[in-house]
């Protein structure tokens, strides 16, 4: 596990309004390097909106975001991905009409070439080696030639996470990666998350409490656009507030 200690990500008074709806209300949040933080909360709590602002997919209405001490509030999504903040969508998002191999190539190429003119001289040998290694790691080497959209759902999810992994992120944000998966597929994804966590910081939005309790040492609970509790799994389980809104008691 990477050393826990310094703050890798921080948000200050982060707010997002959609018209009249305040989806995120002045959220202060800190994440330490090396953590595997679970974010839970009922549907519509604002989890996706929150991490979308961190990844740069949507702009905050107000507030600030710091990554490794740097203010990235105004930075574009693609630049954030380049500097190590990588997001996987809640709904599987891959290049469905392209072969699995091409999907992974695109991610690996971005890391090897950087964002600029490096794209004109990518080392194809190295690219091939790295793509192969990723395919091996996500267990899709045998279906490399298949169109990604034709894979079973669980494999598509693994590919989706594989694309993120291929970017070698510093902070990986997984938005409900086990949603819609069968039990054996969930195990597979959990194994992968655990493995990924050895090298990097992870934010995991997750509904499946079993997955959360097994993976995370610290949990953040959101409801109605705010953080209502934060702590160890035991602390969260014992929290009255959480029991009220989240466990429906």
């Amino acid at each position: 596990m990477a050393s826990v200690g310094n703050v890798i990500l921080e948000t200050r008074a982060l707010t997002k309004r959609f018209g009249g709806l305040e989806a995120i209300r002045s959220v202060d949040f800190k994440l330490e390097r090396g953590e595997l933080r679970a974010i839970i909360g009922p549907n519509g709590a604002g989890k996706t909106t929150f991490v979308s602002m961190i990844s740069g997919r949507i702009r905050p209405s107000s507030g600030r975001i710091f990554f490794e001490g740097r203010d990235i509030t105004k930075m574009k999504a693609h630049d954030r991905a380049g500097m190590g903040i990588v997001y996987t969508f809640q709904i599987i998002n891959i290049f469905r009409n392209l072969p699995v191999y091409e999907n992974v190539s695109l991610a690996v190429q971005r890391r090897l070439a950087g964002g600029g003119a490096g794209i004109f001289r990518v080392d194809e040998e190295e690219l091939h080696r790295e793509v192969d290694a990723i395919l091996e790691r996500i267990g899709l080497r045998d279906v490399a030639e298949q169109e990604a959209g034709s894979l079973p759902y669980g494999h598509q999810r693994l590919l989706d996470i594989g694309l993120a992994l291929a970017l070698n992120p510093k902070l990986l944000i997984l938005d409900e990666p086990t949603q819609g998966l069968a039990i054996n597929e969930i195990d597979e994804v959990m194994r992968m998350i655990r493995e990924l966590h050895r090298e990097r910081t992870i934010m995991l939005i997750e509904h499946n409490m079993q997955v959360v309790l097994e993976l995370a040492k610290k949990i953040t609970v959101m409801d109605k656009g705010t953080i209502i509790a934060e702590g160890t799994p035991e602390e969260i389980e014992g929290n009255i507030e959480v029991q009220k809104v989240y466990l429906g008691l």
Partner: protein
Amino acid sequence: MYVANKGLGKALALHIGVIAGFFILQFIVPPFHAAMLTRIMVLATYAIGYNILLGYTGLMSLGHAMFFATGLYAAGLSVIYYGLPPLEALPLAILLSAVMSATMGAITLRTSGVFFLIVTMIFSQVFFLTTLYFNMITGGEEGLVLTRYLKPISLGLFSVELTDSVVKYNFALIIFSIAFLFSLWLTRSPVGRVLIAIRENDERAEMLGYNIYKYKLLAFTMSGTISGMAGAAYALVFAYIGSALASILYSINPLLWTLLGGAGTTIGPIIGTGLMIYIIDFTSGITSSYLIVVGITLMLLVLAFPPGIVGAIKRRWIRWLP
């Protein structure tokens, strides 16, 4: 195991085969068809340029006539007014097309979807009207003939005349080959890979860290520059420049040719252009009937045959086609 460069040998052989085929045809076909093929090679170059944006990046422009015409007028006017020899007018025209398309791309790519379609069309119409407005210089609708201004092309020991039909044919072939091989290279290059990714799913491409706008601008500029090169070749080969070549019809044409042959394939635009030009010739040269043929073909394509000819072949039989 997956091999990354699989199909490259076959693809390269196919492309060189097409070029060799065009080269050999000039010794076989009668003069009428040689002239048709010359025309097809020049206009297919235009379609190849258009296809980079439509087929490989997924952006549909209705304003490419402005780039075709930029090349056309840059080459034609510099030959007429400044006496530039063809081989100096050509690079000048390509350079101006590059500047023009980079500028237009920077503006129009702020929009997307149907707005992109409309904005490109509007700018192109402004360009078209400008060529009419300055008819004292451009010759307007009637146009200008370059024949007596065209200097010979010097090739070291000897020189050739662009008025000679054999020279026309091979000049067109060289221009065509450059564009054709460029498109093959592009589709297999890292840049082309990203363009295809943007076509397929721009949201995901962005979250992989690619600056979508920059790549689109690059594609737009490459597309416009090749279109301009085709326009310049048109002026030099057919020794004519005129506003009709800047009109909306010349924005629709490459779209039609590309869709017919198969957008997103390197061979498609050539098949589409060739077929359409022969169809138009069969249905003979009345302008109104021409528009009807264009209209019907477009409708049939969109409704019944979206992948185009080569697109369908690629899907069904030859998956390695680039």
